């Protein structure tokens, strides 16, 4: 009897859970329906306001429309974002194709809506996810006066919030805070590589200054990562460091520095790149080939041609891709395609078939 009693209690418990699940499911679905209906409603009303703002015949009537739109937004960030998106994507008015004019219009809307206040409130009162979101939006609005509030979030234990806050400062061009943040994660090699890449791409301040600050205190891994990342920005002030690293013995540093030097495409680096093109590490060879292809000298062309027969597929492929950008003569081309080097011919054919009809 005892086990049967337990089973009955178990059954009742299950029925209770099912009931709760039903209520939860129904409530979630209902909320979703309400949300969809509300969004559609807002969108409909916003469309009228957006058209009113964009097609207003006079500046006075435009101001009146902006005020009406601000009332519709009423401190709701989702409505505000929908309005801004609608204006940016709208086609057909005199603003079409004129992004600057649209941005000026959004600034006028911002003056009435005060989105910064909305996001600051979110930053103060929201959970970690809302805080992170607010940081990003405040950076987009360039709310420099709230930089300190964002800085406080960089020290958060929550990695996402910390990242979002540092990214916001990055967009605001805060060189010291960003450098400190990157240095704080330098030992996390699984994480820092991509962060360095993202932060340098988004940084609005002086990238050279940011790199210098990092180089002063960072470890070797971070140094190599930063060098590889800033290669595309061709920062002349670091050339002596690149030249030293490219001729040194440290393989990781060599890879980074050759990549950085190759991006410049300076004739004075040709000799160094020629040497690097014969390195035992294929990553270095590949970077050097890319760099040599920018020089377009006969000796560089010869090295790139030679690389078409490299033992490593990636180097051959790189050489084939870059050689088409060099001044290669039909005779040279014929020689490669019909030559004894099957790998070179194959790599070339692969590129040529895709570029020639």
């Amino acid at each position, binding site marked *: 009897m005892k*086990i*049967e009693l337990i*089973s*009955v209690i*178990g*059954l009742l418990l*299950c*029925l209770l*859970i*099912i009931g709760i*699940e*039903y209520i*939860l*499911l*129904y409530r*979630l*679905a*209902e909320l*979703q*329906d309400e*949300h*969809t209906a509300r969004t559609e409603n807002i969108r409909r009303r916003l469309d009228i306001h957006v058209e009113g703002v964009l097609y207003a015949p006079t500046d006075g009537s435009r101001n009146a429309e902006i005020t009406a739109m601000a009332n519709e937004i009423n401190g709701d960030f989702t409505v505000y974002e929908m309005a801004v998106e609608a204006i940016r994507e709208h086609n057909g008015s005199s603003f079409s194709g004129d992004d600057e004019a649209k941005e000026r219009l959004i600034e006028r809307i911002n003056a009435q809506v005060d989105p910064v206040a909305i996001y600051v409130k979110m930053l103060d009162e929201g*959970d*970690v*996810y*809302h*805080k*992170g*979101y607010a940081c*990003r939006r405040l950076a987009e609005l360039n709310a420099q006066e709230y930089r300190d509030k964002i800085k406080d979030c960089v020290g958060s234990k929550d990695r*996402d*919030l910390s990242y*979002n806050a540092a990214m916001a400062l990055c967009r605001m061009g805060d060189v010291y805070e960003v450098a400190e943040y990157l240095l704080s994660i330098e030992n996390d090699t*699984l*994480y820092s*590589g*991509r962060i360095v*890449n*993202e932060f340098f*791409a988004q940084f609005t301040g002086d990238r050279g200054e940011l790199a210098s600050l990092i180089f002063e205190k960072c470890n070797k891994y971070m140094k190599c990562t930063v060098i590889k990342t800033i290669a595309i920005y061709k920062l002349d002030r670091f050339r002596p460091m690149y030249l030293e690293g490219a001729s040194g013995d440290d393989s990781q540093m060599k890879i980074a520095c050759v990549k950085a030097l190759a991006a410049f495409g300076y004739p004075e680096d040709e000799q160094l790149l020629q040497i690097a093109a014969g390195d035992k590490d294929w990553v270095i060879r590949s970077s050097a080939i890319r760099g040599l292809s920018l020089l377009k000298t006969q000796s560089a062309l010869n090295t790139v041609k030679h690389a078409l027969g490299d033992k490593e*597929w990636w180097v051959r*492929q790189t050489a084939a891709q870059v050689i088409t950008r060099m001044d290669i003569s039909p005779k040279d081309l014929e020689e490669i395609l019909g030559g004894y080097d099957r*790998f070179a011919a*194959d*790599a070339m*054919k*692969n590129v040529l*078939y*895709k570029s020639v*009809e």
Partner: protein
Amino acid sequence: MGFLNAVRSFIVIFNYFCMAFTLLLSFIYIIQLFVSLFRVHRNYDKTFSDDFLSYVDSDNLLPISLIIPAYNEQENIVQNIRSLMKLNYPQFEIIVVNDGSTDKTGELVVNAFHMHKIETSIRYQIQTQNIEAVYYSKKYPNLLYVQKANGGKSDALNAGINISKYPLFTCLDADSRIEKDALLRLSLEFIKDSRTVVAGGIVRIANGSKIVDGELKGFSMPKKLIERFQIVEYYRSFLMGRVFWSASNSLLIVSGAFGLFRKQTVIEVGGYKKNTIGEDMEIVVRIHRYMRKNHRKYKVKFNEFSVCWTQGPMSLKDIRSQRRRWQIGLMDTLLSHAIMTFNPRYGFVGLVSMPYNWIFELFGALVETIGYVLLPFTLIMGELNMFFFVIYFLLSVSLGVILSEGSLVLEQYTHRAAMTAKQSISISVYAILENFGYRQLITLFRMEGILKYRKLRKTWGKIKRKEFEQ
């Protein structure tokens, strides 16, 4: 008399065993459900501040090769390629591998995309059947069409890997559609954790719904009952099971319809295994085995927000063939990697995930079927306490409903705009109804898979599909 007593005792003991088995399985499922509820809730909140669209311009985003193995896919192939071309991803290539189709698959692709034959260098990093020709189109430079001798799905995928040029690849079914942002969301798993070697997305049943360019434009209930049951089944399997297993880095299967792989890792483990019909599970298990054996840090992830739409079987015959095939694939993989089971060297995968799959996913069908067979005998012999039986039956059905309803709640959470409240509630009715007949039928098909393992383990079978509604 002695024999009858022995039979009687066996039946009684087996009945208790079945009961304990079912309760234990339900208990495991409920743990899975709670872990998944917690994870999905957290992941959903995370997506709020993630701003994943900002990654479109990121240098960190790895380019992807989309490999579509196609064998007699003339109904869907062109439409699928067109839909893939509209993906929101900065750099990708589409490689259609025609695995010796006997219909017009190749002709349709070549003509639709104005392709011409090219000579190209191929790195045969994995051994495959001969690649007969490669076609390229200047108008669609990110599309390659590969014509090869028939060698099966695995061989076609391996050929695609050989010819692909990007560090990540995804295998896609020719009859599935992935959502516009799905690839971007899935590839973030590789950016955010460089240890990630495999990431799987969620597969949803498209039957009845309107899918345009991979986007759901209207959810409506499919006409047939078995299609409706499959919707509930897929929610349960993906939102509950896969979220749970990926949380413990022991997910053993990434759907063949939509999974993203690090190419170098797949090459290191030797590519897809030929002559198996469960190649999608086998490759993931082999990756676990290889990485753990070599003490390499790695992650197998699941992203519940990356959506792939697929057509579920529409007839009983097709669903029977599909489930039989899944069971054979499971059995084949478990047998191939049996050494991992209960082996501490393979960590959580060896100690929990593999035994779970053996005991509950493979032999579960066997236990359940024997239970059904013995039930009438128990009744005849008067060994069944009717009250107890009814309570037990209701309990097991209730537990099943809890799990299905729970996964519907999860679905409502992850894919909020898909269903209206009315649809959500009406689909929940099928979470109850599936326990009366459908579940038992599926168990029998799975059982058949086990019994016909030797005979059918190399037979794929073809499921009848229709074109996606546009």
